[in-house]
């Protein structure tokens, strides 16, 4: 069996309150992502899915701080890495796309220049070469007229195009791991479908592993091979996508799936009330006491 690309072990993280006190946000979160695998993290706002991704990127800011555990990327503990080395990895081997492409792009610089910067910083290319590569990268994410679009500023583009630019930037250096934090939440359904297909196809073609964060179970199902469900800073259930949807074991996962209006279910079963999570879970504080982590199938789960 191959070694995992990303191995998060007992990650604990919290908000510092004064000298030694800390309010915990992540409680012993552990999961692994294999090379080329798409792993999904679902959970509601505040469940800790985004801080997990920020911890991997080394982008936690005070008062957030890691209080224990390890994040192993290709066997190296990212938490112990000097800042200089982390900077070399970030954007190069681990890249990230964010929910709101307008705030993630620099409004004062053309998108071509922002993509070209990746090649200059991480691959030592000249600006001239980098610009040619940037136009090519825009073409790869299927932006029409890439030469002309490279000269655009972010405000001249639609939301879907901006998110494509973000993907082009993130995949510019062929990273081993792409972290996508709710990349399609701000987009229209039809544009969302296109962007998801793009992420899926490009990562599959390049063998890039994906850590996909979303609260939308439908999006997760269409892109990920394995899913982890987070609740209140704990990973409460983890399984292969199909198994998780067909046989959810944790009360919270069951609640989440029941709360989702499913396409076609009204024609088949008539209109049924959606499950109100609070009605099936009497005491939310007990939710994280049980966890259902299904061990990875040694052969079967490989994509």
């Amino acid at each position: 069996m191959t070694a995992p690309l990303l191995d998060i072990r007992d990650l604990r993280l919290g908000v510092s309150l004064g000298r030694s006190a800390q309010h915990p946000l992540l409680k012993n979160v552990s999961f692994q992502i294999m090379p080329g695998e798409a792993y999904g993290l679902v959970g509601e706002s505040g469940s800790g899915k985004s801080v997990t991704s920020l911890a991997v990127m080394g982008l936690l800011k005070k008062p957030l701080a890691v209080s224990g555990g390890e994040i192993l990327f290709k066997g190296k503990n990212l938490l112990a890495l000097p800042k200089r080395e982390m900077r070399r990895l970030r954007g190069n081997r681990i890249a990230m796309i964010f929910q709101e492409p307008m705030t993630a792009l620099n409004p004062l610089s053309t998108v071509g220049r922002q993509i070209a910067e990746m090649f200059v910083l991480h691959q030592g290319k000249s600006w001239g070469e980098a610009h040619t590569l940037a136009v090519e990268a825009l073409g790869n994410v299927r932006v029409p007229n890439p030469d002309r679009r490279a000269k655009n500023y972010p405000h001249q583009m639609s939301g879907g195009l901006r998110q494509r630019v973000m993907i082009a930037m993130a995949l510019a250096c062929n990273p081993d791991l792409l972290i996508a934090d709710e990349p399609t939440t701000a987009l229209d359904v039809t544009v969302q479908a296109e962007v998801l297909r793009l992420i899926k196809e490009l990562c599959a073609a390049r063998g890039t592993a994906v850590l996909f964060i979303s609260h939308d179970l439908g999006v997760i199902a269409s892109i990920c091979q394995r899913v982890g469900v987070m609740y209140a800073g704990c990973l409460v259930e983890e399984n292969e996508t199909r198994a998780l949807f067909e046989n959810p074991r944790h009360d919270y996962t069951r609640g989440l799936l029941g709360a989702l209006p499913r396409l076609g279910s009204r024609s088949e079963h008539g209109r049924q009330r959606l499950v109100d999570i609070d009605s099936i879970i009497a005491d939310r504080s007990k939710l994280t006491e049980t966890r259902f982590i299904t061990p990875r199938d040694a052969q079967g789960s490989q994509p």
Partner: protein
Amino acid sequence: MTAPLLQVDDLHVRFPISGGGLLGAGRRMLHAVNGVSFSLAKGECLSIVGESGCGKSTTALSILGLQEPTAGTIRYRGQPLTGPGAPSRMQRAKAVQMVFQDPYASLNPRQSVRTSLAAPLRLHGITAASEIEGRIEAIMKNVGLTPEQARRYPHEFSGGQRQRIGIARALILEPEIVVLDEPVSALDVSIRAQIINLLLDLQEKLGLSYLMISHDLSVVEHMSDRVLVMYFGEVVEEGGWRAIFETPAHPYTRRLIAAIPDPDAALSPHAREDRFADIPLLAGRRFVADGSTAPDVFTAPAPSELVEVAGDHRVRLASV
């Protein structure tokens, strides 16, 4: 048959774009809504679906009186809502109210919930403190909150609770029609289900008519009685929810349905393609299947008719 509660006929909204000479001669116009007609019956939920920029919000704003239509008529119980003799905003407020997408942005952060709920009552001449108290208490209970919570400020509530307050604010004047603009898209999945259940309960209990604007077709299928699909300012398909979701005839409707990230479809890859294989697909007007070109929104589309394909199911076809 009784007259519909709301009747919209041949609604047009155009916006002037830059350019043109003095007195607006030769000015370019953006044709946002082109000849939209529909009716809404008492107790019905009608959904308008389509992507950003298709004119669904402009249509709703016209009904609320927040956007003056360029042409066309909107009638509420047979009385025109536009043109001369139109009711004032005060009168209109008793008929049509709106629930906004973002409950964080649509409540005044400096007013307690009670103040926000009492203001429209006072404006409409209800000044007796006991009556105001009574109505606020009733509406808070109706949306699943306690009357005591009305003393708090919006920042003290979670997103789902704030949306409940948004609904309470829309219902306090007891309107007959409520426009729901993406009522759940800003909410978490678990909260979404609670708000959808609440909206359906209130509709039944109070006999409300909903005009819902959404691009989330799984929510639309769950809630609607009738569906209107809009594409670049025109209605391209309309019908009962069953017709739209089981036998969609317009390629754009099928694309919208296929775009929903649906776990069942994602996990059984063949289901989605096969689903509509037996149903005839009609060539859609102004629609290019791969989405590479969009229609020109600066020229008015040629007039065309919706073609009936089955009872209460109409589609706009490509002009031959």
